[in-house]
């Protein structure tokens, strides 16, 4: 395993050199190699000596006690022992009351519950799903374009579900582009294909230094990583991987792309940001496979999602520690004006 990842890393390094022009495919390969290496390294610590933990499952069909492996078993593995419908429908788990990814390893003895899109109170699964939609928008933007366009992802804010769309701020370096309906549809198809691919969403906590190494080609993420690491307890950065797409986000994501069915890139608006310069705001909307919708209602929602979303623009998030007080006031005024 180690040899394969080492050779992958070498080959990736070979591709990526300062003389060649940056492309998204090369950058992704490099990131994946680093991610895989780190993942195997972290796993090795638990695999050598397997410890057992007691997990209490509460819910349908009945309460069960399970003996799982520490640092290796995930809530998905617990569901495998209980029932098939739990495996397929669970979006997110509650481990000791805390939101937990379905494929995130369990660390200590705990109480576990599962949440799905058709729950009595689906508030948490809805938020998780909306966050995943924005994450997938990043994947769409990085993969959809040809190699001559180098896409740099900036950030995605936590927009609530009621606003009607999720959003990713991106630097496409195409300042005069107004996407046609056909182009938007082809972008949406990249997201629509994911349902077939059955990709899991994997989570990995890494040191800030490794994260900086992985995202050194993205000028926005380079700036954001120190701030993100500051907020974390152990000063680490949380990464998520879906297939070959890796991104930084704190909250949990859904379990598998088979739980996402409809995906639409609604519109791309041009915005200006004081901190990051001119950006493109990509707005999208998605539906899980558990819920059905008539094409007319879906069209209505897509039209609503294509309206410019001025909520939580990039200037909203300015770290107070960096700005001196005068400049801070200016920034606040600018944000209000925007």
């Amino acid at each position, binding site marked *: 395993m180690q040899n394969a990842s080492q050779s992958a890393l070498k080959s990736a390094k070979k591709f990526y050199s300062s003389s060649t022009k940056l492309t998204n495919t090369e950058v992704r390969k490099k990131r994946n190699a680093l991610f895989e290496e780190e993942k195997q390294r972290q796993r090795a610590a638990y695999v050598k000596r397997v410890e057992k933990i007691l997990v209490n499952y509460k819910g349908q069909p009945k309460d069960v006690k399970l003996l799982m492996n520490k640092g290796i078993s995930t809530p998905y593995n617990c569901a495998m022992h209980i029932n098939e419908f739990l495996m397929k429908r669970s979006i997110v788990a509650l481990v000791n009351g805390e939101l937990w990814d379905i494929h995130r390893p369990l660390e200590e003895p705990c109480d576990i519950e599962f949440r799905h899109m058709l729950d009595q109170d689906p508030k948490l699964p809805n938020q998780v799903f909306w966050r995943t939609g924005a994450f997938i928008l990043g994947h769409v933007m990085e993969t959809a374009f040809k190699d001559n366009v180098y896409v740099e992802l900036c950030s995605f804010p936590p927009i609530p579900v009621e606003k009607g769309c999720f959003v990713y701020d991106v630097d496409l370096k195409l300042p005069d582009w107004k996407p046609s309906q056909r182009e938007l549809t082809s972008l949406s198809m990249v997201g629509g294909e994911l349902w077939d691919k059955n990709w899991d969403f994997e989570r990995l906590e890494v040191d800030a230094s490794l994260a900086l190494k992985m995202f050194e080609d993205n000028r926005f993420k380079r700036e954001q990583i120190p701030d993100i690491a500051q907020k974390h307890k152990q000063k680490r950065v949380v990464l998520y991987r879906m297939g070959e797409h890796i991104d930084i986000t704190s909250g949990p994501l859904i379990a598998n792309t088979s739980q996402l069915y409809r995906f639409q890139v609604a519109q791309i608006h041009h915005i200006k940001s004081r901190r990051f310069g001119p950006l493109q705001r990509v707005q999208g*909307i998605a539906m899980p496979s558990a819920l059905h919708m008539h094409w007319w209602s879906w069209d*209505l*929602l897509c039209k609503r999602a294509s309206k410019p979303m001025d909520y939580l623009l990039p200037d909203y998030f300015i770290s107070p520690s960096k700005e001196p007080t005068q400049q801070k006031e200016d920034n606040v005024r600018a944000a209000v004006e925007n």
Partner: protein
Amino acid sequence: MLKFSVKRRPRKLKGVWTGCGSGPSERIKYLRHWVGKLIRDERIEGREDRMNETRGYAEQLISLAIQNGENHRPTMEMATKWFKEKEMTYKLFKVLVPRYENYQTSFTRIQRLPIEYPGNPYYNVVLELKGNPYPSIFPEQRDKAGLLNNILIEAAKKDFYNEHRQSQVVRDSMERDIVGLERDTLQVRMDKSGSGKVENVKTGSTDGTDVDKL
């Protein structure tokens, strides 16, 4: 007073039992039987027209019992005549009256049953007393307002109606501009001498029209 509608004329219940006669006396026999069954079992099934008739009589009995109480002689006589079993009069006064004393709605509920093909030329129906101990006929509908698709559609609806209302306000104000004057902006200003002049509240200008001369 009954809390649901009753037909003006009694229905002719034709052929209520095969082999029995027809006519008013047989009809009352039939209804006596089924009203007693309803009071006993609290949920019965039958043909729609017949159950509708029994419903009227059952509701009337209960409402009379509530109004007059068991010490009222005519009510007691009526109850004993209507029920074949003595226990039913007891149940009426001791169980059903306290149950339905404070009801604002009717005491019974009717629900049509599904037709089994090829079916009959009439609906079969379930007639039940409210507050019965059986599980309800309809399963409890859960609240689906929190589901993702419903949240998105409700938000889209709100947006649409807010826009619609705003455009309506714009349309109304444009109409007013065309007409030239709004209602309630004119008032009469009284002078010291006692004569009044019509005045525009907003602009303060007067037409010069004297109220006395209008």
